[in-house]
């Protein structure tokens, strides 16, 4: 199932294209304010090992429609904190093998400090609130990974993400 609400947030079973996302995000900032001088990007990749176990592949499951809303909420949060920024978030679903990207985040701003901040903020928030689940398949078993309590209303969690981003 492919779910794209607009060009800057998406949940997709297809391999992620960072270049494509960068073009879109940069275009949003180029003509506003001071223009776009900095693009910070993040890719989360499938690692070969997890806690010492050898990873064969992962499966990501998402509540697609809600994940898109979570990504849009993160865009809005970032837009309030960093007014002249643009942010793209794409998460992949389905089976991924080692080295493939599960998430791509792109932040564009006039200057580099803010680009790094927006990008870091976004990945922290994705990990906090995006309704996406990772199922790991090892040589010797499998396990669902359970991380953060998905609570998009939790302002303390949001504040923590902001502290990490702006440290």
């Amino acid at each position, binding site marked *: 199932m492919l779910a794209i609400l607009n060009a800057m947030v998406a949940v997709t079973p297809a391999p992620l294209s960072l270049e494509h996302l960068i073009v879109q995000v940069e275009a949003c900032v180029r003509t506003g304010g001071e223009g776009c001088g900095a693009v910070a990007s993040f890719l989360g990749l499938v690692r070969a090992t997890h806690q010492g176990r050898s990873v064969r592949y992962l499966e990501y499951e998402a*509540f697609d429609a*809600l994940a898109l809303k979570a990504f849009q909420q993160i865009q809005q949060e970032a837009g309030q904190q960093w007014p002249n920024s643009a942010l793209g978030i794409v998460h992949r679903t389905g089976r991924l093998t080692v080295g493939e990207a599960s998430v791509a985040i792109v932040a564009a701003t006039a200057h580099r400090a803010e680009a790094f901040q927006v990008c870091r903020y976004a990945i922290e928030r994705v990990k906090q*609130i*995006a*309704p*996406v*689940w990772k199922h790991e398949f090892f040589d010797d078993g499998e396990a*669902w990974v359970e*991380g*953060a309590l998905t609570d998009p209303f939790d302002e303390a969690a949001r504040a923590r993400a902001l502290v990490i981003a702006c440290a």
Partner: protein
Amino acid sequence: MRITVRLFARLRELAGTETLAVDLLEPATVADAWRATVAVAPALAPFDRAISCAVNANFSRMSHPVAAGDDVAFLPPVSGG
């Protein structure tokens, strides 16, 4: 009234289904829907304090009222990124 419950990831696996039709007495909240879900799928009980929820694909709170025909999703702790 009847609502639809959607389960994800380990909740889905433990319940053995990704959707459940659940009957509730009115008025009801998301928390009532969860209790009814656990009654049908007791394996979900350990998630009592670890679930989040959405109503009709909008993030919601457990105290939110539900109406007939609503789509109520329960979300175990997330691990995207």
